[in-house]
């Protein structure tokens, strides 16, 4: 049955769900690609699949995460990008065609799910969509108990996002690996409450928060399933609150850990690759790995149990593919040469034996020039 699904994806010109293939086959394919990469150029797909099996490809794969910034290439407004799947797909396509990418993550903004739960969202012309925190859906701690799962068929923005995934999977085919995206339940609740109150509620009223997480997760599992149904081979879960600049580790494990796991298991059941994105400081790699058993972690800062990138590579690099972590300030303020120097430094430490994708720590800043995105791609070509 699973092999049939793999064959069907291949016949449709899509990347198959690698989770359906036996590890031994994937390792053999990665080994062959790794050898072939020494004498010839690999495709983006081969490059990414080789690195996530912890073999060295021809060069480091690169994911510039030049998402919203690529609106400017084709003249799409922020509100159109956030709300119209076809427009967003054109933006992501322009990003791949113009800047280049071995992996794209269809992160639009963090308000997609909260909007469908009823949070008022504002859509500025010059910035990413965001909640109107002056009108939060959750006004006091009892409101958490009123949060219910929603009828997914009526979830306008999530369904538009699923459409985006579908367009991109079909459009990219074998060219570039496309990952879906889902914001974790704590992040969504924070959008509906405002971080200041929400952080404190997590400590003072954990039962209320957890109940709301449960209700939201029912919908998120449907959202994950719908993304997987498009044939998307990987899906990133954003668990921002699993970091020191949010909650204590034990509190995160109690509040979001089990729900993040439900989402991750849905992805795995569909043969998808589970990724985590977390741009917090001192993030909890260990707790997130226990919860979601991911193959990939995209990060902006070192995990709380590692003092250096070398230590992170030694501790996690043989079973987690590390994605990152060029700092946003360097992308905003640095010259292309400075960006490339930083890329080289990270490649030198993290690329050995595969398991590494060069990327910004978070989405490429949407309102700056694209020249440093080009620098990222060039660095991957030059320094691997």
């Amino acid at each position, binding site marked *: 049955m699973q092999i049939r699904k793999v064959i069907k994806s291949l016949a449709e010109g899509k990347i198959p769900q690698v989770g359906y293939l036996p590890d031994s086959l994937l390792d053999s394919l990665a080994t062959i690609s790794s050898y072939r990469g020494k004498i010839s150029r690999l495709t983006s797909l081969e490059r990414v699949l080789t690195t996530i099996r912890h073999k060295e490809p021809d060069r480091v794969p690169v994911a510039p995460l030049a998402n919203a910034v690529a609106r400017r290439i084709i003249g799409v407004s922020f509100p159109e990008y956030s709300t119209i799947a076809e427009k967003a797909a054109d933006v992501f396509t322009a990003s791949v065609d113009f800047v280049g990418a071995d992996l794209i993550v269809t992160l639009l903004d963090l308000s997609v799910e909260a909007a469908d739960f009823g949070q008022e969202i504002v859509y500025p012309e010059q910035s990413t969509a965001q909640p109107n*925190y002056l009108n939060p859906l959750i006004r006091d701690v009892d409101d958490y108990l009123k949060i219910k799962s929603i009828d997914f068929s009526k979830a306008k923005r999530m369904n538009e996002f699923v459409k985006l995934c579908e367009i991109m999977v079909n459009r990219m085919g074998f060219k570039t690996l496309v990952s879906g995206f889902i914001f974790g339940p704590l992040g969504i609740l924070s959008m509906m409450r405002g971080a200041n109150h929400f952080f404190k509620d997590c400590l003072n009223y954990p039962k209320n928060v957890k109940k709301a997480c449960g209700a939201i997760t029912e919908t998120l599992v449907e959202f994950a399933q719908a993304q997987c149904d498009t044939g998307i081979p990987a899906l990133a879960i954003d668990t921002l609150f699993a970091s020191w600049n949010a909650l204590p580790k034990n509190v995160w494990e109690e509040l979001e850990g089990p729900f993040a796991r439900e989402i991750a298991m849905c992805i795995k059941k569909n043969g998808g690759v589970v990724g985590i994105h977390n741009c917090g400081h001192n993030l909890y790699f260990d707790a997130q790995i226990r919860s979601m058993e991911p193959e990939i972690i995209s990060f902006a800062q070192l995990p709380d149990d590692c003092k250096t990138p070398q230590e992170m590579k030694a501790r996690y690099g043989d079973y987690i593919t590390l994605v990152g972590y060029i700092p946003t300030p360097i992308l905003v303020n640095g010259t292309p040469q400075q960006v490339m120097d930083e890329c080289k430094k990270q490649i030198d430490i993290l690329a050995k034996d595969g398991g590494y994708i060069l990327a910004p720590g978070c989405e490429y800043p949407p*309102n700056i020039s694209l020249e440093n995105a080009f620098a990222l791609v060039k660095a991957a070509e030059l320094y691997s």
Partner: protein
Amino acid sequence: MTTFHPILKNLEQAVFSKDPDRVDELFQDKSITDLDHALIVNALTQGLETARKELGTMTVSVAEFLLSVDAMRQGFEHLKKLAPEDKDRPKAVIGVIKGDVHVLGANIIAGVMEALGYDVKNLGQDTDVEQFLSELKQSKASILGLSSMMSTTLADMKETIARCKRELPNVKIIVGGACLDENLAKAIGSDGYAASAAQLPETLDEIERLIDPKKTSRKYVDYDRKIQVIESS
């Protein structure tokens, strides 16, 4: 009156252990009225300082630190009933740049600045340059703190800094936020950068030296010198 009165130690502990109910309870104790206002302030701010240091070593998370800030503020509210508010504190205005709605960082910084003895006006989210200028002029604040989490608002931050410097050249500006680092903070024209609340006292020391190199510290707690009394300027 002694620095080692048990209520003081308990207040400090209540703030550190993020327990506003305990702060309330301690202020119900009649013996607190015999204590010097300054020592009570000192106990509350020392509690937050201990939490801030643990924030710096990542032993305390941001969520926990916020609760300590609340407990300290609870104590300040009680103090207002016991003694007239100190009107002579150095003034600061802070806020989040227009277009950005992430107030958490600014709220934390406001709490730490209050603990350091500043009279802080926090303008909150989505604040435009006119609001900053108006508040600075009205309050005669010498420090402006600008926060932005999103890179999309950096151009506005740069413009806000330029405009404030043009109209109020004596006001010193510190910036912070997830999208910034020290180099970028300099590049957009700020006078100082605080990576986090943990680093804030050092940044404020530098800023105050820019304002007046000879000025004596007016902080409630002079952490560097470990003196537990209020100094006068």
